[in-house]
């Protein structure tokens, strides 16, 4: 029994002995990460390979465990919010939504309509940015460096937009209990629409350069298939689940924050190439979701109602009354939810955050069997994890 730092690598299912007896073959145990270009952070994967063929891949997490839940229990309500941002640093606003929605439901806090719209606009901008990063990073993993930079061009513009409203480039601390911190200007709205047009105009460029590139298609179509059952069994959500053919999008299924006001589609795999649930479909899924998000942003900006952006009842020393709630929302990487328990104290009694990446990456060990190392990279890149929310 091979054991590597507490991880048991199951023996058995060795490759069928096709080689003559006198050639000695041996399985290699690789340690991939925590510092590896395609583990997207500090994920560590222990690989057992037969040459290039992966027999087993065991993801090991926890290298970025930053005690988010303990801190939420220890600090006051308002103080705790920035820490949620740092869970998924690529989709920080969506993480804030995850906590705030639960607390608001448990405490029955009213949120002004304008604030709800602003949340939607900024969260969708953040989702677009996050998906651009994920798609580019996937290209980078596949060896295509340039598309990443092209996607970063639009990403930077989007960051500038968010920066203008929230004051932060990456982590925002914008959504508060009962509303948001700042209102947007008319000028910003114009810029935002212009940015949507810019991204939409460049979608073809990304597709030509990366998505429908012949080599890219060969690398990803039919590779590392995550089917519906596997995804559901492992609790995988978000683009992975939708690319596997399950039309589950909480923005449609359990609308929160006025998502029911907007007209958008939920793209579901399989898309025009490949088979349902393969790496290419997960990549395409993200690009299609960008287009839908742009639709939502445009509608929300046109329909943005007048009014206040925060609930005056929620002040600095605000406490939630006793109670509990479980609300989930759709973050770029999957469903972020919070099991929130309050005992009426100054801090949440328990705020259990669900990091979608935590569940998404857990299926790596089952899905990766029999893949080549290059395919494993495709699998990991198309799952698109953020270790911040995986380890919290």
């Amino acid at each position, binding site marked *: 029994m091979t054991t590597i730092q507490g991880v048991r690598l199951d023996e058995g299912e060795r490759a069928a002995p096709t080689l003559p007896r006198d050639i000695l073959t041996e399985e290699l145990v690789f340690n991939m990460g*925590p510092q590896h270009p395609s583990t997207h952070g*500090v994920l560590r994967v222990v690989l057992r390979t037969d040459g290039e063929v992966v027999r087993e891949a065991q993801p090991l997490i926890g290298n970025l465990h930053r005690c988010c839940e303990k801190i939420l229990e220890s600090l006051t309500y308002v103080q705790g919010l920035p820490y949620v941002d*740092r869970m998924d640093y*690529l989709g920080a606003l969506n993480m804030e939504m995850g906590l705030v929605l639960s607390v608001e439901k448990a405490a029955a806090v009213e949120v002004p309509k304008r604030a709800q719209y602003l949340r939607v606009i900024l969260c969708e901008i953040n989702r677009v940015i996050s998906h651009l990063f994920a798609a580019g990073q996937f290209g980078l993993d596949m060896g295509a460096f340039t598309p990443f930079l092209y996607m*970063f061009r639009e990403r*930077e513009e989007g960051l500038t937009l968010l920066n203008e409203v929230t004051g932060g480039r*990456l*982590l925002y601390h914008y959504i508060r209990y009962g509303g948001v911190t700042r209102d947007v200007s008319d000028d910003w709205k114009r810029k935002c629409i212009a940015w949507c047009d810019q991204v939409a105009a460049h979608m073809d460029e990304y597709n030509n350069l990366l998505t429908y590139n012949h080599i890219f298609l060969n690398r990803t179509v039919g590779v590392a298939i995550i089917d519906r059952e596997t995804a559901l069994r492992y609790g995988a959500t978000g683009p992975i689940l939708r690319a596997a053919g399950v039309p589950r999008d909480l923005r449609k299924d359990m609308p929160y924050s006025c998502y029911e006001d907007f007209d958008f589609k939920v793209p579901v795999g399989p898309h025009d190439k490949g088979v349902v649930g393969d790496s290419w479909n997960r990549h395409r899924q993200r690009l299609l979701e960008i287009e839908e998000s742009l639709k939502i942003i445009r509608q929300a900006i046109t329909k943005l109602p007048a009014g206040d952006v925060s609930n005056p009842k929620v002040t600095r020393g605000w406490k939630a009354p006793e109670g509990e709630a479980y609300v989930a929302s759709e973050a770029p990487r999957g469903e972020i939810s919070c099991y929130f328990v309050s005992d009426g104290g100054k801090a949440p009694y328990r705020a259990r955050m669900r990091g979608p990446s935590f569940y998404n990456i857990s299926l790596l060990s089952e899905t990766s069997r029999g893949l080549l190392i290059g395919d494993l990279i495709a699998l990991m890149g198309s799952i698109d994890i953020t270790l911040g929310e995986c380890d919290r």
Partner: protein
Amino acid sequence: MTEATRPGRPSYMPPPERFDPEVEQTILLTKAEWLVDWSRKSALWPLGFGLACCAIEMISTAMTKFDISRFGAEVFRATPRQADVMIVAGTVTHKMAPRVQRLWDQMADPKWVIAMGACTVGGGPYFKYGYHVVKGVDKVVPVDIYLPGCPPRPEALLEAIMRLQELVEARSKRLNGKDPGYTPPEKGSRQAKKDGLSPVEPWETAKAHKFDDAKKKTEEDEAKAKAAAAAAKKAAAPAAGAEGASGAPAAPKPERPARPPKPPETPEGGA
């Protein structure tokens, strides 16, 4: 050639000896030093190593808008052997700390560390309640440039790179007498460190290689183990309580400072 894993490796450049200034400015040696330092500062290859949020800003710095390649520093090496500067971008946790240290060990001299972000500077937002967060990466590797911010903007990282270039260049500037008003600072003083001329080499101050003897039991642990064994013996043989009490005098249970009494003991280990 030196072995990578040998602790307390000698410095890549010995502390500059002070010659007669006239000699210093004329001999070729100092000019060569200048060339070497110029090349080092112009080709700072970072280790492609992201930990958390700051890594995204580090990537942004390498991208179109900020373009770290202008300084010749866009060559993110995937292997520590070929990197010059480790940008520790993000929170270092206790689980990750040995790996960070190991990566630093694996880098070839001369090497520098930029502590990017509040977490690596001193724990940052996780200072008080972050039980699993190392409060500052300088507890495990020596840091040359501290870059605060949560996360620092890419412009800030560019400035950190430029400051590091100044630091790299400082030594040969002094040697070449480019700075006439310069008097060598007192040994080990703050100024000496600032000038990059510290006789105390950075790795002497680092608490390096503590992880190697993680398994080594400290006296404290031994005492604790003894106490636990005594307790187990006591529990196993309640009848021989008197004997146990006399035979094994109650070892004082070592309490760590500033730690409240332990919660009721729960059975540990897997089911």
